[in-house]
Every structure is written in C-alpha cells, then in structure tokens.
C-alpha cells in the first residue's frame, strides 16, 4: 500500500511557539516530507501547511505577528486556496480574539471568540486527556455521525465560528467546536499528532485535500 503522505511536503510554520517536532514526526510516519516554514520562499516547496501553537494566546499571537509570515500565510490560504491545518492554539489564532489575552488580536479567518471553559460541578480545567469528538459531517476517513477519541490539552475553546462549519464537536461541561473547516482551511482543538491511531487517521484525511 502506498503511504498516504507519498509525494506530499508538509510545511510547519516555525514561529517559535509550537510543538514542531511532534508534528513532523507524525507526517514522516505517514510517508510525507516535512519542512519548517520560516520565510515566504519556504512555502514554494509545500503541498500542505500546518499552523501549530502551544502557549498562551497572546504569546503565540505576538510571535506569529513578529515572524512576518502572516501575509504569506494569507496568500497561501486565500489567494492560492491551498490546504492549511491549524492545531490547538494554531486553531485559536484563526479567531478574532481570545479571553485568554484580551489585548491580543487573532487572524479572524474563522472569526468568533475563544472563551475560557468554565470549571466546577465536576468539570476540571484545563481540559486534559482523551475526549470524544462527534463528527457532524464526514472528514477524511471519519463518516458523518461517527465519533472518535482524541487528546486535548487546553483551557480555552471555540464556540461560535463566524465563518466555516463545525465539522466536529466535543463536550466538557459546555459543548465546543473541536474541528472547524472553511473551504481549504481546517483547524482542530485537539492534538492529532499525539492521538495515536485516531490522530494518524485524521492527519491522513487532511493530506487527501
């Protein structure tokens, strides 16, 4: 069987705020090539681009703005309409803003506000561990109506994407958007690169775009 990643080059935006190594490892496992995107020119060799993000929203937003890569990323996602995947804070950065860092600006490409998950009544925050994602519609190998467990590690979540469609939802106290898609842009709150076989299946689905 030909690995799904054969012939794909996945560029991971390197703005000093992501778990780049783990994401690279996952795509290498799927048979893809990977590269670290540090400058406009690096996009040329990519077939797919990942926007990672680990850290506070304000910290990541500042780093991303400072990287000088926002315009290139916008061209990639909107002018060229190429596949892009935001992971964790990389998803949250696509919102307008986040309660975590009210002064910081998001990219607004999905829009909406990232809100703190309320704790209490048996709900502990951060939301850490494996939780079930319900697929509201099909994505890759996951049919609409199916469910799978993915690994989450976050205190803030997306509720109201202004653009795009909630492909998967998850509940921890309140329901939130776990997977959102706007045309060629997909974003996930969980960590597919750490979600063992379900995560690999999810990333394989992204590579089919």
């Amino acid at each position, binding site marked *: 069987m030909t690995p799904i990643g054969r012939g794909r080059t996945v560029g991971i935006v390197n703005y000093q705020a992501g*778990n*780049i*190594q*783990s994401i690279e*490892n*996952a795509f290498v*496992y799927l048979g893809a090539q990977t590269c670290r995107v540090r400058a406009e020119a690096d996009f040329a060799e990519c077939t797919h681009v990942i926007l990672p993000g*680990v*850290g*506070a929203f304000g*910290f990541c937003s500042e780093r991303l703005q400072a990287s000088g890569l926002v315009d290139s990323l916008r061209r990639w996602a909107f002018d060229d309409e190429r596949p892009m995947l935001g992971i964790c*804070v990389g998803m949250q950065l696509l919102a307008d803003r986040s309660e*975590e860092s009210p002064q910081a600006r998001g990219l607004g490409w999905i829009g909406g506000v990232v809100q703190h998950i309320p*704790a*209490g*009544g*048996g*709900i*502990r*925050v*951060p*939301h*850490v*561990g*494996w*939780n*079930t994602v319900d697929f509201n519609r099909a994505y890759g190998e996951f049919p609409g109506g199916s469910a*799978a*467990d993915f*690994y*989450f*590690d*976050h*205190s803030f979540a997306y509720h109201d994407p202004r653009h795009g469609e909630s492909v998967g939802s*998850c*509940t*921890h*106290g*309140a329901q939130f958007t776990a997977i959102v898609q706007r045309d060629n842009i997909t974003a996930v709150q969980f*960590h597919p*690169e*750490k*979600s*063992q*076989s*379900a*995560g*690999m299946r999810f990333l394989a689905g992204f590579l089919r775009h």
Partner: protein
Amino acid sequence: MTSTRLKKRLIPKLLVKHRRVGSDVRPVLVTTRQFREVLDVGDPVSQAKIYEAQLADELAVLNIDGTPIGKDELLLGLIERLATETFMPLTVGGGVREVDDFALLLERGADKVCINQLAFQRPELISEAAARFGAQCVVVSIDFRTDAAGHALVHTGHAGVRENVDVVESAVRAAEAGAGEILLTDADRDGMGSGLNCRCASAVAAAVSVPVILSGGCGLAEHFVEGFREGCAEAVAAGTFFCFRDQNPMQTRAHIRNAGIPIRIET
C-alpha cells in the same frame, strides 16, 4: 451528572536514571520502592512502545537523578526519541530549573513539563511558565509522606528531609500560581503495590479545580478504580505496576471499565 465524555487516564511512569553501560552512559528505565531501592528495568524507548501498543493514555518521563535537564543532552535525546517513536502525550520532569527548560523540552517533543522542587523554591516560575506556555503545559509534582499523626506533608529532595508543609496547602498555592495539573506521589507507598492514598488525593481534588494525577502504590486493577472513585483523580500514574505486570493490560483496562469508570478501550 457531569456533562463530559473526558476519559480517566492511565499513565505509565518512566523513571529514568543515568547508568554506565560499558564505556557509555545511557538513560535507563528503573523502578523504585519508597523512593529508595532502585531496580533497573531496561530501555525506556522499547518500554514506551509497549505501553503505546497497550493503549497508555499518556507517558510521564521523570529524571530521578535530578540533573539539570536543560543541559542534559542524553535526556533531551531520549525525549526526542520517545516523541519520534510513539505518538502519545509526553509529560517530562526531573531537573527542570528554569522557564527556558520548558522551551527546550517542548522543542524536543514534550507536551507538558513537570516541576517539583523548583515550584517550592521559586513559585513565581509557575506563573512565568504558565504565562508563556499556558497553564495546560505546567504540571506541579508534589511528593509527600505521612507523619505519625497522619498528616500528609510535602517531601522534598532525596535525603528524606521533611518540611512541615501541608500537601493540600501546597497544591492550592501551585494551582493559584497557574499550575494546570497536580501530580501527587505518596513516597511511603511508592513501589509497594498496597494501594493508592485516596484520602490525600480527594482532599487535594476538593481544594483545587485543576486535574489531579495520583501516583504511588498501585498493585491491582482495583487500586486504579479506587484512585478514580475515592481519590477523585482524573488520572492515575504508575511505574512498578506497569513494568512488572503479568496480567494483560487490556484486562486491567477492562476491569476498570467494568467498574463503571470511563476510560479508553480502543482507538
């Protein structure tokens, strides 16, 4: 009834020490009893792969030599290999001395960083790390022993020094400073297989709103059930239990699930 489908976690602990093997020094997987007796088990990466196949929910890698991890290329290399060869969440601790160590560990593939003594010596580091990496990345590890009067007191260092610091109070302070999880380890029960300290865990869980990971004393599948049910832990971590277990780990998981605890059974 709480509305979440978050699963309780089973976390194998990989305790690591530096050992001279022939002419090189390597990180070796060990187990301990009451933090004192140390038994060498083998290669941490092979063991991690077995755990992944057995559906471990997360791995905790702890450098029990406590050497400064940011300067320890052997350990950083080990984390990188673990992240390359397994696809599950990694919590790394032992010898974390400064905020920059978080960045180094995350770069090599760790997802969460665990701090212990540092958290008590310089609590402001919890807040600094949380502001930069998010609370979800910061795990504060509290080792404790129970005194003659039955009080759980923080145990710092390996020399058996006791300070009269209450475990619940330390956990509350750590959570206020920005810790995203509390890892509790009962040093008296460590490696004994006689059951977890659910009393201490439930007191901590009642006092903080962040998840509590309980460790020290698992010998039976039933001990995990007790840790979740009576200890109110979100996760149970174990070293010896997973290293030397004759029982099929899938049977252990089935036992826990049959007791009504929500855990993963398949991916």
